[in-house]
């Protein structure tokens, strides 16, 4: 009974366009009325669940990305990417993918990356003879890589929701991010061959690469500091995020001089705002999850799935399918907060490592950024390119297929996400 009230009213509130966090909270209140659980549980849980040092990494990583994303650094990363892959057929499209990979190593954010890079590169691609629909689709699809390559905010949220090590989760995202990047580039290459697009005339020379890297060195150092710091035991992920903020501030204001001090307060407020809209969901979802656990829903779900199939291949396929559908309609972080605690017990029952499962969830839900008709990256790409959503939805389909293929590999070959971690142990 309580479970029906929880899920039924939650769904109804979502239909009424109530924010996800508030809908969860209202559902809990109704469940209290039915079950007679103490009403103060929710008010208390809303404070205790966000009283968490690891969660504080969220606003800091957002802020660090914003401070460094202002103009200067994205342009320099693009130059590095151009030297590396610009000369191949479909070079500009590959440059877009590679720039998003570099950018992913600095910021944990998706749509912001799409906007920053798309505005620079879509006009260039159109000038070079690319179909505008394809150009917009490349940008939208590349924007999914940002959340896989560390630092990654979805990974932080998954780690806090499931008590998994955030440091390990970060490492587990590196190879999947690179894999997805290579797959997208491979598709760009095939597409370019088919349509006769050429690369840039500049050949590759070591001196060009060194010059571009030197220009972008402050940005390229960020992943070294963050991952090296966390893994070297120098600081916790949250402290690493703060160091990245201080670093980004100094690089933006004093080294590149492209960030004005007067712009900083509004960037800070906007990062706090984004954090609050996510953490209100953590605040209420914790109580929602506790009520579900009291009703033993996660165990029942695990048993139901076991009764349906004992085959891990099929179970993982079903979970992936469920996540793809949810990811289409729901924000990535919201989906992780709500579903990770419910689905992880199922995955554990089938011998999936919690870290590996985190990588699966993040990659899968990132695909939701571009799943028509509601993918956020599609909206952003539509906004900056002017290509209609219908056309963009069609142009994105090959990329969607490529991403799903990569997801399957990441799901069924645990070494892709676990390999680096095992190597370091």
């Amino acid at each position, binding site marked *: 009974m309580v479970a029906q009230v929880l899920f039924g009213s939650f769904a109804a509130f979502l239909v009424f*366009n109530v924010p*996800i966090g508030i809908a969860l909270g209202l559902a809990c209140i109704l469940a209290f009325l039915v079950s007679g659980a103490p009403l*103060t549980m*929710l008010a208390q849980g*809303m404070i205790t669940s966000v009283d968490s040092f690891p969660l504080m990494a969220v606003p800091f990583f957002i*802020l660090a990305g914003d401070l460094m994303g202002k103009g200067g650094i994205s342009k320099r990363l693009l130059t590095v990417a151009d030297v590396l892959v610009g000369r191949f057929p479909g070079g500009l499209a590959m440059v877009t993918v590679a720039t998003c990979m570099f950018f992913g190593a600095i910021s944990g954010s998706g749509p912001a990356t799409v906007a920053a890079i798309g505005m620079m590169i879509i006009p260039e691609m159109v000038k070079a003879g690319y179909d505008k629909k394809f150009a917009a689709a490349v940008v939208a699809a590349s924007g999914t890589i940002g959340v896989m390559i560390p630092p990654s905010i979805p990974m932080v949220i998954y780690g806090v929701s499931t008590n998994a090590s955030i440091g390990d989760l970060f490492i587990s995202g590196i190879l999947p991010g690179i894999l997805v990047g290579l797959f997208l580039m491979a598709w760009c290459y095939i597409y370019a061959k088919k349509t006769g697009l050429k690369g840039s005339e500049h050949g590759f020379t070591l001196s060009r690469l060194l010059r571009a890297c030197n220009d972008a060195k402050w940005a390229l150092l960020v992943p070294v500091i963050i991952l090296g710091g966390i893994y070297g035991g120098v600081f916790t992920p949250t402290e690493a995020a703060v*160091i990245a903020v201080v670093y980004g501030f100094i690089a933006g204001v004093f080294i590149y001089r492209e960030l004005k001090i007067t712009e900083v307060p509004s960037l800070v*407020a906007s990062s706090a705002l984004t954090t609050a809209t996510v953490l209100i969901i953590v605040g209420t979802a914790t109580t929602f999850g506790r009520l579900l656990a009291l009703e033993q829903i996660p165990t029942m779900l695990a048993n139901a799935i076991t009764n349906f199939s004992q085959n891990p291949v099929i179970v993982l396929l079903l979970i992936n399918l469920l996540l793809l559908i949810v990811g289409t309609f729901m924000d990535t972080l919201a989906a992780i907060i709500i579903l990770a605690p419910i689905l992880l017990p199922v995955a554990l029952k089938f011998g999936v490592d919690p870290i590996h499962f985190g990588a699966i969830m993040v990659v899968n839900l990132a695909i939701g950024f571009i799943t028509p008709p509601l993918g956020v990256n599609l909206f952003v790409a539509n906004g900056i390119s002017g290509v209609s959503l219908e056309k963009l939805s069609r142009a994105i389909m090959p990329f969607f297929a490529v991403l799903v293929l990569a997801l399957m590999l990441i799901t069924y070959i645990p070494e892709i996400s676990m390999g680096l971690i095992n190597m370091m142990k």
Partner: protein
Amino acid sequence: MGLLRKIDKHLEEYLLSFLLSTTVILIAVQVFMRYVMHASPSWTEELARYLFIWMIYIGISYGVKMQRHIKVDAIMLILPFKAQKYLLIVSNILFIVFCVFIIQQGTAVAMNLLSFGQTSPALSIPMGYIYMASPIGFSLAIIRLVQNIVVIVSELKGLNQENNIVGSTVRTSDSR
């Protein structure tokens, strides 16, 4: 009147900038102290966490003002413009109901903690002050929700008067 308008326009923004910048400084100091001064203060992390809690609940009000709360927008996409506006009014009212509940229960929890005199381990801050973050944040949010409803109602009125329905755009939730 000038001051009141300034508060209306920037209150949350200023508070959030202050709260988050202070946490950045606190944690940067913590790292600095540990590696340069070889001393690990216990109060920096504690204070940073408490400011973070306040930041979240002030941020919820700012989220209402900026209309940035994360929603499932699928239904909005298929509704005509006017129906969208009516739905938004309902959604804002449900949000207010939640605020009222949390203000009531959250204040009760906070008052309880204050009367027991429970304090934080490192800085001995009364825990009640930390728990006041949610009632105060949601009180601010109610003001913003009412402001939103007023705007929507006047939009609907204007729409009825002009009687020309223009194509609509739907906000997308910002996800990261």
